[in-house]
Structures are given as C-alpha cells and as structure tokens.
C-alpha cells in the first residue's frame, strides 16, 4: 500500500507536481514531492504539524515559489505560479490562517479581486448583483450571516465558513481546503462534508487537509501522508483508517489517545454563579469546575462559550454574577487579576491573542511571567531561554531553537507555545478554548496527556471544544451550552455524540 500512485483507476490527472522542494533558511519544508490530481477526486492530506502540508498547498496556490521542481497544468509545465495564474487555472484556496478583510462586508470579501461590474469605463461595482451572487453560496452552507454582515462582527468560526464560501464562489476545478474545519462544530462540519461530496459529484477535485482524521475516513477517495516534507505513503479508499494514517504520519502506533484520570475529583475550585456576558445579556450561566477535573464545554458555533471564557479571564466585562476561586469570590476586571488568582486562558484565536508572531518563542513563553525571569526589574535572557528550552522539550515544540520567531512555526506548534507560557507558571484553573485547533494527532495525544497530568496534579480545567471526539474522550464531565445558557450537564455514563448534540441544539436528553 506504500507509494506507487496507480492504485486508482481515475481520469487522467490535469494537475501534477514534479519533484517539488521548498527550503526556508536552513530548513527543508517540502522535499521532492510528486503529486497528481485528477478531476472529481477528493484527496485527503495528512501529516504532523510542520510536515509541510500548508507549504505544499501554498505552492499550488501561487502564494510562494518552490525552490525547485515543476508544476504542470493541462500539460503545460511551469516553474511557479502567481496567485492570479493559479486562480485562472481553476484553483481555489481556503487558507489555514484566515485572510479576510474585516473592514469589508461578507459579499465584498467573497468576490474581492473579481467583483461584478456595471458596464462602462469606470469599473463600478454592481452591488446588487454582488449580493445576489453571494446569497446562494451562503444558503448552500447554511450559514447564519448575510452578504451585508461586516466581517468585523463575525466570530472566528463564521469567518472560517466565509473562507469556504469564498473558495466555492470561484467555480474551480480544484478546491484546496487547508484545515477548513478546525473551528467548526459537528453540524457545520457535516454540512461542509456534504458540500465536498457535491463538488466531487460535479467533477470538481478537492484537496482536504485536516487533523480530525475521522473527517477523512468519511470523505476522502485517497489519503496522502506527508512527513518531514516528503510523501511517505498513500492510502486508497479501502485502506483509510485512523490507525493506518497515524502509523504513516508518526512512524509508529499511538498508545491510547485519551488517558483516564488517576484520582477522583476534589472540591470546587472555580465556581461561577449567574454570570451574564455582553453577547447574551439575557442569559445567565452557572457552573463549577472541581479540583483535578477536566470539564468539557461543548456547544454549537456562537453558543457563547468563548465569550464566557473571556469574561472569566477579565477581557470582557461581567454584566452581573460572580466568580469564585476556592470558595472566595474574586474580582476580575483585567487578565492580570485573573492570572494573579491562578486562572489562565489559552485563547481561541492564537494568531491574534495567543502569541506575538514576531517575537521569539522564548519571549512569548516568558511574557506573562517576565518578573520571574528578572532581578531588580532587569530581564535575564539566559533564564528566559533556559525556561523556554525546558518547555520546548516538555511539549516537543518543533523548532530548531527557542530564538525562532512565532510566525515561522506551524499552527500546531504555535498552539504548544501558547500552552507552554501557562504551564511555566503553575495554574490553579486552566481554561482552554479549542486547545487542539489545528494540532496534529501526535501532538494532540501529548496535549491530552499534558492536560490530564495537570488535572491529576490538582488543576481544575475547563476545556472548550468543538471537536466532538475530543470532548467525549478527554472530559470527566461535559457541560453543553446553547444560545448563551447551559442546556445541560452530562456525567461520564451519559457521554455520547447523540446526547451532546441534543443539548447543543437546545433539546433535552430525557
């Protein structure tokens, strides 16, 4: 089942990569990749964080130039593509990192660069036609925003859906989706998979990148596995399974993904009572997280989970209600205070809030705890580097050294850096908002292990997640939110996809 592309009898490929390599200063991101796409096939692309998936796709999308190798489209060979050439060749790209203009509305974003025009020399935008063209695409994905919604008002999940809408609008032959589902919940994901099936049926090819492997078992015709920039194998439809993919990705079997708790949970550590936030000012939320417990917080996109986390951490104002740690009511007007009480937050949008992209890994890790790396107000860079190095080893952050800038890391490794900065400080309560968004299975299992170890050492963990498998696998208890309120709690015995979903859409399980 290794290599040898001719497993499938497909139409002749219209797109081919020959011996493509890309190196960044001192780092071989993609190495001698050969890859072909035929019409109407869905290709899954998997690999660990930093394996080179996005880099490869960016080469196809014309965003970066390969160091060597050729691209062949409809028999024409080229050294590289520009974004426009790629688009004109019928390739659409959903970027992993969001590339939207939040000063424009939805419709303008979808058709940016290809606006429908009124006739005449002035190149005026036909806004009616623009909105009319966008609406059916929105309907197709069943999203809850309109062509006129400003992107600045949209949540990250909504933005991800918008990126997909943008790609669909291109009417392309090949749609590249780089982790399109990383912040989607089950319902949107299912809708997206249906769209992918629809595309396939109409002869469009799709390259689908995801770290949620069961999505690939559902939709892919074949799965290509990358490791360290090389293709290490390919799985035909019949062979696609969790185990097979993981084995190729990390070169070994994974022991159990989820680790069971070692001890029984203790007293309530974090207790929030009748909290109201600005997004859902009419609803109140009460919940508590016990010592040593991982409380999963599930819900649909926009259920208000992120908002709740932000309010507890002091980013957003609490309209009313109280937060208590270890039975003592505390005041949180500022993240600094929350941190002082041992409440840490791993935010959802790591690129904007999680880390500073253009400072080093070491400084990112040290930032919340700079005082500890300093004496007399002066920073000791040796301590900063040493602490970071320790975390890098502990979390297996893939970077040549800790002086690397945050922006040069793959998404998963960035996430580890965000986690690392809190782990260096001994949390009492850790709130993780989508902690494994865009993180590969290997790293996921490490992160889960880490969370469990933390919980076992007495930390109370509130884990917000849209990944159903993860919520069920990792949590000791699950709270489900629906439109700003808790629609129910589930004990371990009641855990099931069905139950979580019922609560998430606001139905009762009994």
């Amino acid at each position, binding site marked *: 089942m290794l290599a040898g592309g001719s497993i499938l009898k497909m139409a002749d490929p219209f797109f081919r990569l020959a011996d493509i390599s890309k190196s960044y200063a001192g780092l071989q991101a993609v190495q001698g990749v050969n890859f072909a796409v035929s019409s109407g096939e869905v290709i899954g692309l998997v690999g660990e964080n930093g394996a080179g998936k996005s880099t490869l796709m960016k080469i196809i999308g014309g965003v970066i130039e390969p160091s060597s190798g050729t691209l062949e489209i409809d028999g024409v060979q080229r050294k590289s593509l520009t974004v426009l050439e790629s688009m004109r060749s019928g390739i659409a790209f959903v970027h992993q990192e969001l590339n*939207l203009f*939040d000063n424009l509305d939805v419709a303008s974003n979808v058709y940016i660069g290809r606006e429908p025009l009124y006739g005449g020399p002035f190149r005026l935008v036909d806004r009616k036609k623009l909105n009319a063209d966008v609406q059916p695409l929105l309907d197709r994905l069943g999203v809850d925003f309109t062509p006129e919604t400003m992107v600045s008002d949209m949540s990250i999940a909504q933005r991800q859906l918008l990126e997909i809408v943008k790609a669909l609008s291109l009417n392309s032959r090949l749609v590249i989706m780089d982790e399109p589902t990383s912040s989607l919940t089950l319902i949107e994901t299912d809708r997206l998979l249906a769209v992918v099936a629809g595309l396939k049926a109409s002869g469009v090819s799709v390259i689908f990148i995801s770290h949620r492997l069961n999505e690939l078992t559902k939709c892919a015709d074949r799965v290509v596995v990358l490791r360290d920039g090389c293709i290490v194998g390919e799985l035909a439809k019949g062979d696609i399974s969790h185990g097979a993919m993981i084995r190729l990705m990390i070169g070994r079997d994974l022991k159990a993904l989820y680790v069971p708790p070692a001890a029984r949970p203790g007293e309530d550590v974090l207790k929030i009572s009748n909290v109201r936030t600005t997004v859902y000012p009419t609803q109140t939320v009460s919940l508590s997280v016990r010592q040593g417990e991982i409380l999963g917080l599930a819900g649909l996109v926009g259920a208000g989970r992120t908002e709740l986390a932000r309010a507890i951490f002091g980013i957003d104002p609490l309209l009313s209600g109280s937060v208590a740690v270890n039975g003592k009511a505390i005041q949180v007007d500022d993240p600094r205070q929350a941190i002082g009480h041992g409440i840490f937050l791993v935010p959802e949008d790591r690129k904007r809030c999680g880390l500073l992209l253009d400072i080093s890994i070491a400084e990112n890790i040290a930032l919340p705890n700079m005082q500890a790396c300093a004496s007399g107000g002066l920073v000791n860079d040796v301590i900063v580097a040493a602490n970071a190095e320790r975390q890098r080893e502990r979390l297996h952050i893939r970077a040549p050294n800790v002086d690397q800038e945050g922006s040069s890391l793959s998404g998963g490794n960035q996430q580890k850096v965000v986690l690392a900065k809190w782990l260096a400080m001994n949390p009492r309560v850790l709130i993780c908002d989508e902690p494994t968004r865009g993180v590969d299975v290997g790293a996921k299992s490490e992160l889960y292990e880490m969370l469990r170890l933390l919980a076992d050492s007495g930390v109370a963990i509130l884990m917000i997640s849209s990944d159903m498998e993860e919520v069920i696998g990792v949590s000791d208890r699950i709270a489900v939110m629906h439109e700003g309120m808790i629609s129910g709690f589930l004990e371990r015995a009641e855990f099931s996809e069905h139950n979580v979903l019922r609560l998430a859409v606001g139905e009762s399980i009994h």
Partner: protein
Amino acid sequence: MFKKDIGLLILILVVGTVVAVINPLFLSAINLGNTANLVGLFGIFAIGQAFVIITGGIELSVGSIIALLGVLFVDLIVGHEMAWPLALVLMLVLGVVIGLIHGLLITRMHMQPFIVTLCGLLIYRGAARFYTQDGTAGFGFGVSLPQLEWLTTGRTFGVPHSFMALIVIACLMWVVLHRSVFGRYLYAVGKNEEAARYSGIRTNRVIIAAYVISAILTAISAIFFAMYTRSISPSSHGNFYELYAIAAAVLGGCSLRGGEGSIVGVVLGTVLLQVLQNLVNLLGIPSSLNFAVMGSVILIGVLADQQFAEYRKRKSEAAGKISTA
C-alpha cells in the same frame, strides 16, 4: 462609518450655532463665502491625503508640493510668459510624476511612506526656496488673467469656485472610493496587504495609484492657492498644511492604521477646521488663543462623540438586561 460622519456633522452644527448666536455676522453671505472658499482650498488636498491614509500610508509633503508647484506655476506664467492652460497642465503632470516617484519608492524599494514623504517635504520645500532664491514669486500689480482668475477665485451666485471644485472632486472621489473596484482594493490593501495579494490584487499598483491621486489633487490645490494668495513666499507658503490634511482626514474617520475612512468624513473634517479658524477671528478671541480654541474644540468634540457612542452601546445593552427581567 456613517455614524461617525453624523457625529462630526452635529459637532459642526453645534459650533456653528454657538458662533452665530454670539455674532450673527457668522451667517452673513460674505463670511459664509469666505469660509466656503477656504474649505474648498483645503478640502481638495485633504481628500488626496485620505486616499493615502486609507492604504495605511501617509503623505507629509503636501505643504511643500503646494509651495513648489505654486512657485513654478506663477513663475512660468509671469517669468516665462507661458499660456496659463499649458502651465496648468504642466503642473498636473508634475503632480503625477511626484506621486509616481513616491509610490514607486514605497512599493518597489520597500521604503517607509513616512521617510519617503518626509524627504519629499524637505526636498520640495528646498527646491522652491532655491528656485526663487528665497524671494517671493507673485503676480505683480496689474497682471491680469481674467479667465484663470474667474475659474479659480471667481464666484457664481456668491459661491466660490474653489468650493464648487471641491464638491465636484468630492463627488467623483466618492464614486471612486465607495463604488468602484479600485475603492474596494484600496480598503483591502489598507487593512491587510498580504491577504490582498493572496486575493490576486496587484497591491503595488493600488498603492501607487493612491499616491498619484493624492499628488494630483494636491497639484490642483496648489494652483487654487497660488491664485488665492497671488504671491508665494516659498519658505512659509503651505507650511503645516500636511498636518491640516491629516487632521481633517483623521477627524473624518480615517485611521492611520489604514483601511478606514470616508469622503464625506474628510470634507466634514475640513469644514470643522475652517469653521474653528473662522470663529476665532469672528468672536474677537485674542489671536494668541487661536490654536488653543481649535485644539480644545476638536478634543472636546471627539471626546463627546466617543462618550456618546459608548453611552448608546451601554444603553442598548441595558435594554437587553431589562427584557430579561
């Protein structure tokens, strides 16, 4: 965007009303005409500035361009006896060239807009002063160019032509900025240049175009100013005008981080600045306090607008609260 414009309009109306109550001459045809004329003169290049600011850039050489082109224009007509339409076209061409140079240095040579246009500020001012040997270029007494004068400093039904020019330019630029593809690209580039490039927008061209538009509008302004003052002392003509332009744009809702701003806002910003200037003279406030009054009104106005917006937001939140109970 729209709400910001309303806030500014209210501020202008409040200030205007207060001034009119204290000194009714504020509303006299002659005073309104004078103010409209100045709004026209300053508004034209402020719109140009807004285009640059929306791309996330800045244009500091406005005042110096006005001095240099003004000196050249006057000297070509008076010293070299060139026909004025030819001189006018030449100035516009020079404007295009200046804009192109700025745009190319910024996009191709990857220089910071601040540096490029600061050097422009110094170089054009120096060139103007050197050209006249620090003397004054002016239309001497009796020099008369009836058509050109009618066109630039004339009035029709009491409305100064400079103001009409502003209205025409503002309408045109409104269409360009808010309705054309180019306008979209401008906002996109200003917000996120990299993403714009990913979307297949030729960002360099968009940025260059913004600087060219700005320079052309500044050149038009320069001619209006030359005809208004009729004499140009190159060491002081147009000094600080870049600050005026930026202030008008920022008051009008442009963000210096790029990606934000509207034409209506910029025009209203210009109107506010001129009304403030006017009220100091009209109310007999000691001219030493001129600046202080201007600064205070802007500060209080923007502060009030901000507080009002927040109050509205809180109120709508509170309304949500009540509906719970």
